């Protein structure tokens, strides 16, 4: 039924959607892990700091918001890659191996960068909010450090988008 010796199966392998969906899934999974770590770790700092300085709590929610944005980066890439994976029509594949590997690369790029950025935001935010409660002049410094951490996730999003939008030749041209 599937003629596995014909040329099209090398370039438009039936396993190509596996790699594409792997990229989409892992983009979200690792970005969520990073965002969860960032939210939880900096949340602990806010909670401890808030006991002695309740008026500073709402100002200190900045690292939590930034960690949430990391999760959104993963969501964006996962939706883009997931929508690029086309279902086959009958016996004709619609999604080439090139597209599959591109989606895999884009997803892993964004996801693992998001994990890294989330860990960074978590630890820097935790100590940052506690220190800026004790010394108010440190608030701007904390925000600057968090912005640099967030930029790491943004680099991953940019490169991931570039990779995920690469398209190979359509499978019809190989038939």
């Amino acid at each position, binding site marked *: *039924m*599937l003629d596995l010796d014909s040329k099209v199966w090398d370039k438009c*392998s*039936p*396993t190509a*959607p*596996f790699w594409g*969906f*792997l990229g*989409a*899934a892992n983009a*979200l*999974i690792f970005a*969520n*892990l990073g*965002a*969860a*770590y960032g*939210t*939880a770790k900096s*949340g*602990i700092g*806010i*909670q*401890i700091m*808030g*006991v002695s300085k*309740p008026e500073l*709590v*709402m100002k200190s*929610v900045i690292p*939590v*918001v930034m*960690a*949430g944005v990391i*999760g*959104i980066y*993963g*969501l964006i890439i*996962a*939706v883009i890659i*997931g*929508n690029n*994976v*086309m*279902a*086959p029509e*009958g*016996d*004709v*594949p619609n999604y080439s191996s090139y597209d599959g590997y591109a989606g895999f690369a884009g997803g892993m790029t964004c996801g693992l960068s998001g994990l890294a950025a989330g860990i960074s935001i978590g630890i820097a935010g935790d100590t940052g909010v506690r220190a800026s409660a004790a010394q108010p002049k440190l608030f701007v410094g904390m925000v600057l450090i968090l912005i640099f951490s967030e930029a790491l996730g943004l680099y991953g999003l940019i490169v991931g988008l570039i990779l995920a939008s690469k398209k190979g030749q359509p499978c019809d041209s190989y038939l």
Partner: protein
Amino acid sequence: EEMFYGWGELLNGISPYAWAFIGTGLAIGLSVLGAAWGIFITGSSLVGAAIKAPRIRSKNLISVIFCEAVAIYGVIVAIILQTHLDGPDPKLDGAVSLKDKFAGYAIFWSGLTAGFGNLACGICVGVCGSGCALADAQDGNLFVKILVIEIFASALGIFAIIVAIIISTQANFGADE
């Protein structure tokens, strides 16, 4: 002699129904694991803090409910995925069509997205809820402020199920209509 030449042999060799059922099972299994982890983190802090401040008990049960919601997300995704799991097309007589392979991979990764995403979310909501209980025990005004952090944390579970549902929309086993 059987030799595997690469990933293609391995991925093609596993039945798409295996991929799909594993994905569906992990969707709910890992989500419930995350919810459970979050509930025990929150619950242990809650009962410990309530020894000296019993007033916090009823209000802070909302943190436990946020963790439970993560498990509900997993149930929703698993139920949606299992509606895609139709039987094989009888006309093919046991062979696997291209569409079935696609559906197998899609449902597998959709389930894993929901599962691991909700695992992370559940643990995060648990840690935030634990801190909420401890802060509330020391100063009652802090409860609402720290709850804001927990709401950000539960948004991660929403992201996971959005991606899981988007990935699984095109997955169809069985006969073409």
